[in-house]
């Protein structure tokens, strides 16, 4: 159990869903692609996100129509697995995640072969410039998720996660929209997939706040989840 899992950088794949993210995408892709593989899923953008990502060093998969973040993640994960990825990182396209946190996750997976998933938590880590209302909403969703999954997490809607190939194969995202975050946690709980939560920093900027999940999205997420329980 204490043996390390040696993984070279070329076996690490960053999966980055992007929807009309041309402004921030370039710096994210350039930073990541300097060391790791990166696949950007252009989820039906109407701007030049795809072309920019491609020029900056990413593989680009194009959804011909907008399906949602959950669907985009699964497309990218499928692709990474096809490319025989051993570690898959889900990473946001708008620059709110830090590469150094992702690298910590890679290290955690390398040093502890019993783990299949590493989740990021902004609440044991840092949530820079997070608005009050959003904090409340996120905390409530953590409570809801812990209640329904039986896990004890400190963050439930954090886009920064790391999976081993095995972990990624076992968690298939069927929630195309934002409810995928809870769906992933549900599957971790149902299949008892070994995971660890580590502190990460999320940097909120004007841009991420304008685009990010709105409070009104919360009711939609709850609705998606309830319906997903009725129709398995």
């Amino acid at each position: 159990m204490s043996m390390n899992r040696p993984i070279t950088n070329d076996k690490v794949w960053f999966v980055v869903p992007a929807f009309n993210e041309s402004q921030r995408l370039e710096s994210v892709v350039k930073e990541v692609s300097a060391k790791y593989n990166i696949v950007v899923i252009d989820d039906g953008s109407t701007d030049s996100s795809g072309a920019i990502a491609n020029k900056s060093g990413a593989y680009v998969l194009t959804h011909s129509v907008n399906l949602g973040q959950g669907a985009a993640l699964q497309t990218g994960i499928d692709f990474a697995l096809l490319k025989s990825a051993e570690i898959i990182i889900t990473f946001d396209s708008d620059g709110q995640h830090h590469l150094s946190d992702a690298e910590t996750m890679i290290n955690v997976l390398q040093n502890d072969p019993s783990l299949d998933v590493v989740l990021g938590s902004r609440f044991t880590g840092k949530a820079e410039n997070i608005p009050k209302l959003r904090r409340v909403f996120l905390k409530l969703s953590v409570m809801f998720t812990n209640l329904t999954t039986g896990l004890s997490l400190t963050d439930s809607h954090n886009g920064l996660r790391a999976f081993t190939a095995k972990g990624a194969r076992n968690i298939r995202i069927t929630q195309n929209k934002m409810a995928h975050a809870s769906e992933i946690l549900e599957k971790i709980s149902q299949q008892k997939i070994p995971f660890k939560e580590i502190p990460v920093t999320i940097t909120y900027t004007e841009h991420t706040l304008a685009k990010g999940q709105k409070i009104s999205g919360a009711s939609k997420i709850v609705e998606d989840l309830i319906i997903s329980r009725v129709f398995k």
Partner: protein
Amino acid sequence: MIFKIFAFLFLLTLLFFVIFRKFNVKVVKYIMEFVLSCGIVFVIWPEQLTAISNMVGIGRGADLILYLLCLFFAATFLGAYHRFREVDKRFTNLVRVMAIRDAAVPYSHHLQNDS
């Protein structure tokens, strides 16, 4: 009286449609034939419907119809939703397969291969 005739003819036409149409699921055909036949009977003899309602503890025939309509609506809605989810899944898979098939290799890789 005029409405009765209209309703009767309308239901009868529907019934013929159902009888002579092919259904993938036979049960659906039988249920529709049964419901339409009941409809015709109760249009002609509405007091029979009230009698049946009384048997199951509902005061008026109209109430029984209302309750049944509610159930029917709920069932139809759930069925349609289920179907929508299935179609949505297929659609997602299609878009996904196309995206992976047409994956764009990073620009820099092209340059390396060209030189």
